[in-house]
C-alpha cells in the first residue's frame, strides 16, 4: 500500500541523508523504524509525509506518488505542536476543517473522549501537561481518519511512565480504524511493543540495515524472555557490538525469527 523505491535525499549543503531505500508497507501494518541519531529516520518520515521531496526515488501510496502532504497521510511530531491560541477542541478541529460545524463538533468530542480528555475541550494548550498535549496531538492527527499515520519519535520527550501510557493509547486508537502506522523511535523496546515489523536503520548515509518480524504474541509482554532477547538482538543490530540472535526460553534460536539483512547501497 505504501511503497518506497530507491529513495535518496541529498540536502543543499551536500549532506547525503538517505540512500537507496526500498520498503513496502501493507495496509494496517505497524512498522517501527529504529536507529541512532543522524541515521536519517526522521528524514525518511518527512519524505513519506510529503514535507520534503526526495532527490532520487519515489514514495507512492496505493500507486499514486506522494510529493506533498495529503489528507490520507497524517504526521505526529515529537512535540505536540498545538496552536497556542486555539482551545483543545479547536486544535483537534484542525484535522476536520472540511466538515460542517455540527458534524465537526461531534467528531472532535468523540475523538477527545477516546483519550479521556473530553473535559479539557475548552482549555488552552498551555494548561495541559506534556503527556496530555501529546494525546491531543495524536487525536488531531487521527480525527480525519487518515489511512497512514506517521509518528516521529512521538513519545521521546516524555517520562517513562507517560510513555507507556501513551503507547497503550496509541494501540487503542489504532484499533478503531486500523490505519497503517509508521513509527520512528530510538527506543527499541517501544518499537518491539508496538510493531509488527521492525526496521533498523544505520547512517552515513542513511540506509536500511535489517528488517525483522518478531511475531511476538499480542498483547506484548515486556517482561517476556523472548521479548527481552529480541530487544538484545535488535540492540546488536543497531550497534554491531553484541552478536544478537533472538533466543527463546530453551536457549534455542527462535524459529519464528525472520531477519533480513541488507548491504549498504553506496
Amino acid at each position, binding site marked *: 500500500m505504501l511503497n518506497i523505491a530507491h529513495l535518496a535525499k541529498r540536502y543543499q549543503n551536500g549532506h547525503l541523508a538517505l540512500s537507496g531505500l526500498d520498503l513496502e508497507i501493507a495496509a494496517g501494518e505497524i512498522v517501527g523504524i529504529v536507529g541512532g541519531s543522524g541515521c536519517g529516520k526522521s528524514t525518511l518520515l518527512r519524505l513519506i509525509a510529503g514535507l520534503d521531496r526526495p532527490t532520487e526515488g519515489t514514495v507512492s501510496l496505493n500507486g499514486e506518488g506522494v510529493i506533498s502532504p495529503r489528507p490520507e497521510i497524517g504526521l505526529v*511530531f515529537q512535540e505536540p505542536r498545538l496552536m497556542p*491560541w486555539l482551545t483543545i477542541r479547536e486544535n483537534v478541529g*484542525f484535522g476536520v476543517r472540511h466538515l460542517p460545524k455540527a458534524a465537526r463538533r461531534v467528531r472532535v468530542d468523540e475523538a477527545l473522549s477516546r483519550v479521556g480528555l473530553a473535559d479539557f475541550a475548552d482549555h488552552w494548550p*498551555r494548561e495541559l501537561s506534556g503527556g496530555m498535549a501529546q494525546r491531543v496531538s495524536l487525536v488531531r492527527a487521527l480525527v480525519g481518519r487518515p489511512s497512514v499515520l506517521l509518528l516521529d519519535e512521538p513519545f521521546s520527550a516524555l517520562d517513562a511512565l507517560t510513555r507507556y501510557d501513551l503507547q497503550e493509547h496509541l494501540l487503542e486508537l489504532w484499533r478503531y480504524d486500523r490505519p497503517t502506522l509508521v513509527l520512528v523511535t530510538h527506543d527499541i523496546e517501544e518499537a518491539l511493543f508496538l510493531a509488527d515489523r521492525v526496521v533498523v536503520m544505520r547512517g552515513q548515509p542513511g540506509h536500511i540495515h535489517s528488517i525483522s518480524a518478531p511475531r511476538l504474541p499480542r498483547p506484548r509482554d515486556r517482561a517476556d524472555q523472548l521479548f527481552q532477547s529480541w530487544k538484545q538482538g535488535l540492540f546488536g543490530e543497531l550497534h554491531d557490538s553484541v552478536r544478537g540472535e533472538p533466543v527463546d526460553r530453551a536457549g534455542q534460536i527462535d524459529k519464528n525469527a525472520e531477519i533480513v539483512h541488507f548491504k549498504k547501497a553506496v
Partner: protein
Amino acid sequence: MSLTTPLLDPIVFPDPRNSSKGFDFAERPVSAGKRPSWILGLVVPAGLALGWELAVGLGWAEGRLLPPPSRILHTFADLTLTGELANHVAATLGRVGFGFLLGVLSGTAIGALTGTSTLARRLLDPTFQGLRSIPSIAWVPLFILWFGIFELSKVLLIAVGVFFPIYLALSSAIINLDRKLVEVGRIFRLSRLAMVWRVFLPATLPSYFVALRTGLGLGWMFVVAAEFMGASEGLGFLLTDGQMTGNPRVILASIVAFALLGKLTDWGLARLSERVLRWQDAFNPAA
C-alpha cells in the same frame, strides 16, 4: 527506627486529572495586597499636581508660565461649558481614529505580504525602509501640496505614521516565526491564505499588539504635526491658538487633554490585547 514515618517531607503535587485547570508549575504572580493597581499609578501625577498647587498658593513660585492645576481645571471648565472642548476633542479623535484605521489596514496587508513572500519582500522592503527614515514633519508640506489643508492631508499623515511600526513588526514577526507551527499547517494542507489567516497572524498577535500600541502613540504625535498646519479646530489647533494669544492656560489644558486621551486610548488597546492574548503562555501576562 521504623519506616512507617517518612524520611523526608513528601512533596505534594496536584493531580492534573483532578484539577479542572490543569497543571501550572509557575504560579502566576498575584498583586500584593488588596488595593487596585491603578491607584499606585496616580500617586506620582497627583503628588506633583498637589505640590505645584501648594507652591503657587504659598507664593513660592509664579504661576504664569506654568499655571497651577486649579487654573488649568478652570480653563477646562470654561471650554467645556462653551462646548468648545467637545468640538476640539471630537475633531482630533476623529482624525486619529481614521488615520489609525488606515495605517493599521495598510500596514497589516503589506506586512503580511512581505512577511510571507520573499519576492514581495525583496521588491518592496528597501523602498519602505527608505520612506520610514523620512521624519514626519517633512511629509507635511508635501501632503498639503497634494491633498490640501483640510481633513484628507491630516488623516493621511497620521496613517503614514501608524503604518510603519505595524508593517515592520508584522513582517519580521512572520519571518521569524517558529517553523514548527508552519509545518503543522503544511501537514494539514492549508492554502496560502489560510496559512496567513490561521497560523501567521494569530502566531504574531503578541508582537502585533505591541506594534498597534506603538502605532497609536505615533498617531497621537502625528496629529499634532498635522493640526499645526491649517486647522481651525482640534487640540493641536488649541495648542497653537494658546501660543498665538499668549495664553499658557490653554496650552497646558490642551497638553493635559492630549495626555488623558492618549492614555485612555492606549488603555483601551491594552485591555483589548489582554483579552485577545489570554491564551499566551507568558511569564507575567497580568503585568
